[in-house]
């Protein structure tokens, strides 16, 4: 049943906000969908999302967990698999890939012997055309 009360959209709205934040970080750091090869980023996000949704489907089919009653639209992709879970899983995958990319980048900048000197605040996703062009 779809109950159209504002609380039904709380979780979805929070997820969309989180996804928008990922887009901003991604664009600023040119990490995944804003990297030199956005198709590669999209493919990885898609495969990761399918893996986690598959995990959900098996767990739901086995009865390990089920949908709760609160703060969701009530739209289901499959029995007990809320629409919101799709957005959550995309967020989890996107966040993980951005985090890993930023950590790799930060450790690369710290490593001695690189042509480029380490910069203060290396963890910040500062766009650097000279590096990104390679």
């Amino acid at each position: 049943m779809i109950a159209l009360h504002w609380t039904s959209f709380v979780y979805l709205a929070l997820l969309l906000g989180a996804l928008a934040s990922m887009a901003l970080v991604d664009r600023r750091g040119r990490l995944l969908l804003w990297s030199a090869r956005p198709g590669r980023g999209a493919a990885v996000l898609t495969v990761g999302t399918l893996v986690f949704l598959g995990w959900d489907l098996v767990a739901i089919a086995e009865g390990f967990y089920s949908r709760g009653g609160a703060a969701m639209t009530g739209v289901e992709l499959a029995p007990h698999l809320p629409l919101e879970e799709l957005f959550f899983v995309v967020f989890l995958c996107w966040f993980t890939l951005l985090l890993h990319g930023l950590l790799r980048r930060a450790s690369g900048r710290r490593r001695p012997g690189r042509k480029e000197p380490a910069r203060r605040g290396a963890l910040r996703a500062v766009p650097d055309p000279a590096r990104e062009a390679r």
Partner: protein
Amino acid sequence: MTYAGLAAVVVAGALVVALVVARVRRLGPRWWAATAVAAVVLMVLTVVFDSLMIAADLFRYDDAALLGVRVWLTPVEDLAWPVVAALLLPALWVLAGDDDRGEADA
């Protein structure tokens, strides 16, 4: 099958993918350090947000299918999610590339 059994299967699969990709694409200590730090960060966030989501009644568990160990409200089995994410996704990213330089930025 228990939820822990399912989690173990998925973690094992992700670990195999990560190890194979690391071997084929010659990923070094930098890669694994980033993966370890990402896993820890994701696990902490999982405990916080999974617990909040459980408190908000977004989903419910069948207690009979759980080990019964919880970190705050998070069933310990749910920590397999951040572990799989940290192992699998960066490995897929490298795998999807056509170069051999997994250590390279991008």
